[in-house]
């Protein structure tokens, strides 16, 4: 490691080489190192969750489900869901890229509470430990949604350990959100007004609102399930006077906004990618910023759309349906603004841009299928079928994971000081795109045909589509392994990147790659608008009129 990052090689002291040794990493309060600590953790959990996905798709190759027993399969999809949702998707972009970039993007030296940031990483892994204990000691089989009374009374699996694991990890989320909000409010550099902030920052601000308001409700809900299991109280058990629907309301009050936690940061990344690789100002900046907040707010009002057939009243269902349509509007606004940004841009096709465009395409499909689910009359048919599974995977994998990978590639030069190999990266992006669609598009068809979710066995007529889906999954797996390999390779052998290889307009690119521990030698003073390529003579790009600028001496 030292050979790759030493001052001799990279030319300056940076956050990677300022100190070496395990202790300097495990006790760091540098937001950049903490971002990398998170990167290591969530990569591990991603592959663990992915392993369960592989097992699921293998098992579903045959209708009788002959790979494992029913109970084991039920544990597979539960663990896949819990690990992917709580230990990969929710932290991913905020904890890795948000932590690394937000202080850099606003011109600060660190987040507001660096020690809380480190504590957050430890709490996260403590939660993971409880969950891994549940996995290792036999698993959980309730589904990641823990519906009562199955989870609180009937399941014979390690529900309490898993619930505790998620409970603990939730505090990690809350601390991250709190840190981001305070940082963005109080630590912006002089001249960095709210409306000069990159949309990445707006997106994380909106996400943090959800972290802070939603996560505590999940915590108390899972806490009550654990109490119910241990002390046999009856809050969710009708036989003891309780109400299973109360659990669903409490659970979804968090878990719906949670999906916006997963997608808003990816939208923030996409905005950066589209603007940078069109070398053009984001179209409709104010509208995109407002849309981020709008999604976060309205997102808190739609949870009942998971319960249209659960037993709530027709009137409640109608209210949730209409609000669910409303929440689609700000997302549509963003998509249109990204598209308009490309108009008369100067578009290049480096890997991050491929991920950005891939995000838009797949998010559009995923989001539009949400309209099917919001339609009460159609949801009755497709609820709890593979249609829903396809819908959320389009957004979470096609959307959020692509956003994550796109961001990882885009900021890789800043994080590591090196360039990843462009050819391999493009190949991986293409493989992922193809594998993803092959895996999940057939599931829309399966769902409308009527194949329910969470089935370890299924009628024979569904086999062809299942085999197609599993075939796609194998391609998807290859696509994920490739970046693991070449990104690590590039840390040692990749060409040295300069401070601003693309170039892009954000403050994070105004400091060396990798950044020094204190981020900026002098606190920057911001005098330009976001994405204002035309005014940024320092980027040494031609003006809009294609006139070449005279060569300027090095600073």
């Amino acid at each position, binding site marked *: 490691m030292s050979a790759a990052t030493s001052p001799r090689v990279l030319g300056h002291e940076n956050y990677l080489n300022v100190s070496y040794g395990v202790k300097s990493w495990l006790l760091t309060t540098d937001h950049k190192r903490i971002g990398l600590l998170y990167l290591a953790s969530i990569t591990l959990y991603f592959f663990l969750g992915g392993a369960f996905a592989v097992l699921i798709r293998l098992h579903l190759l045959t209708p009788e489900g002959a790979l494992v027993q029913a109970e084991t399969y039920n544990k597979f999809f539960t663990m896949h869901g819990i690990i992917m949702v709580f230990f990969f998707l929710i932290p991913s972009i905020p904890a890795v890229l948000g932590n690394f970039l937000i202080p850099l993007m606003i011109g600060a030296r660190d987040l507001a509470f660096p020690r809380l940031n480190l504590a957050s990483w430890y709490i996260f892994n403590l939660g993971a430990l409880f969950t891994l204990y549940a996995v290792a000691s036999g698993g959980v089989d309730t589904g990641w949604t823990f519906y009562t009374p199955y989870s609180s009374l009937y399941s014979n699996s390690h529900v309490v350990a898993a619930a505790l694991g998620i409970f603990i990890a939730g505090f990690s989320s809350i601390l991250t959100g709190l840190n981001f909000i305070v940082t963005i409010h109080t630590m912006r550099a002089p001249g960095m007004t709210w409306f000069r902030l990159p949309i990445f920052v707006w997106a994380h601000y909106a996400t943090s609102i959800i972290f802070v308001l939603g996560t505590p409700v999940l915590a108390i809900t899972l806490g009550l399930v654990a109490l119910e299991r241990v002390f046999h109280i009856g809050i969710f058990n009708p036989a003891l006077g309780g109400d299973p629907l109360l659990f669903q309301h409490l659970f979804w009050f968090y878990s719906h906004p949670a999906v916006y936690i997963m997608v808003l940061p990816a939208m923030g990344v996409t905005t950066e990618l589209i603007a940078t690789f069109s070398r*053009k100002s984001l179209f409709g900046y104010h509208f995109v910023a407002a849309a981020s907040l709008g999604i976060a707010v309205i997102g808190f009002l739609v949870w009942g759309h998971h319960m249209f057939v659960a037993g709530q009243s027709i009137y409640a269902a109608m209210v949730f349906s209409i609000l669910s349509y409303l929440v689609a509007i700000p997302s549509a606004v963003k998509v249109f603004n990204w598209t308009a940004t*490309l108009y008369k841009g100067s578009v290049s096709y480096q890997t991050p841009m491929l991920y950005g465009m891939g995000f838009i395409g797949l998010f559009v499909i995923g989001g539009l299928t949400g309209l*099917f689910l919001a339609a009460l009359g159609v949801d009755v*048919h497709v609820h709890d079928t593979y249609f829903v599974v396809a819908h959320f995977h389009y957004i979470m994998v096609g959307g959020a994971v692509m956003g994550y990978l796109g961001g990882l590639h885009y900021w890789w030069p800043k994080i590591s000081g090196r360039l990843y190999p462009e050819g391999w990266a493009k190949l991986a992006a293409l493989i992922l795109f193809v594998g993803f669609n092959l895996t999940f598009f057939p599931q829309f068809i399966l769902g409308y045909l009527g194949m329910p979710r*969470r089935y*370890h066995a299924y*009628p*024979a007529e569904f086999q062809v589509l299942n085999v197609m889906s599993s075939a796609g999954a194998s391609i998807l797996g290859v696509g994920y392994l490739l970046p693991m390999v070449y990104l690590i390779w590039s840390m040692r052998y990749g060409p040295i990147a300069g401070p601003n290889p693309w170039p892009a307009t954000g403050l994070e690119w105004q400091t060396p790659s990798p950044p020094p521990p204190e981020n900026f030698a002098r606190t920057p003073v911001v005098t330009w608008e976001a994405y204002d390529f035309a005014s940024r003579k320092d980027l040494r790009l031609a003006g809009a009129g294609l006139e070449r600028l005279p060569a300027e001496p090095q600073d």
Partner: protein
Amino acid sequence: MQGGLPLFPERASSIAGRVDALFFFLLGVALFFSLIITVMIVYFAVKYRRRAPDQIGALITGSTNLETAWMVIPLILAMVMFGWGASLFVSIKTPPRDALEVYVVGKQWMWKLQHPEGQKEINELHVPVGREIKLTLTSEDVIHDFFVPAFRIKTDVLPGRYSTLWFKATRPGQYHLFCAQYCGTNHAIMGGWVTVMEPAEFQTWLSGGPAEGSLASAGEKLFHALACATCHRSDSQGRGPKLDGLYGSMVRLGNGQSVLADEGYIRQSILNPKAKIVAGYQSLMPTFQGLVTEEQVLQLIAYIKSLSLPRPSPGAAPPAPGRTPSQGQATKRP
């Protein structure tokens, strides 16, 4: 059973066509917008590709008119989708009067179905074609879901309360029945078949059942065996309210509220009698929780419902006042 590659489910209920119509509208809108966005992105990305290494894009920051347009048009479309879906939903959730009733109890991992005439089925439901059927469902343990893809209907089935589902089958045949709410180990094999038959065939099937008698008569036997008749006398002298004409009427409670005496009310009165006390009566009734199964509760309800049917004798007393949720085809008199 189909092999090969099915791409679209068959339609076998009166509502399926309407559901598919909305589905195709949504599909059309989705395809339209996906195509437009994809085409525009690809077109712009190619037409405006970078020609020189230091070229930047044009100086355009936005357009309020465009923003307004692409907020308003999707909003209108969304409201159309909402309205259509909501009206369809009301139809799906509103059982018609005069539907044939079937009672369903779900448990890990089977469906127990009961026709009022006495026929019992496990994991199978036989119904006549062209007739409205209303299901009343409950669970003995965890939450299940009764799903018939060919009919485009489903409802969660909860412990401690009743759900209803209705349909009118339009084609004879056999259609998958699935459990669609994860309920434990054998969730995936807790299914069966709905068999739709011609009316004459159905009558034959119905009368071929065991001679145990109708649901209501079983309920009547239970009513006496559990000594309900001690307090619930037909002459209004009892310590409990008279049950003749109760089902479907509005009941005035001691706290001033009025409630409809439907299946859920009767079930609650048996299992949690303190919850609602009828005006003018004391809270004396003991609970039968743990003393009767869900199926026995359904038998009692069937019996009590039969007490609200108009008697066929001449100069008959008028039926009970208030709404009468669909009356069953009970052929036996109470």
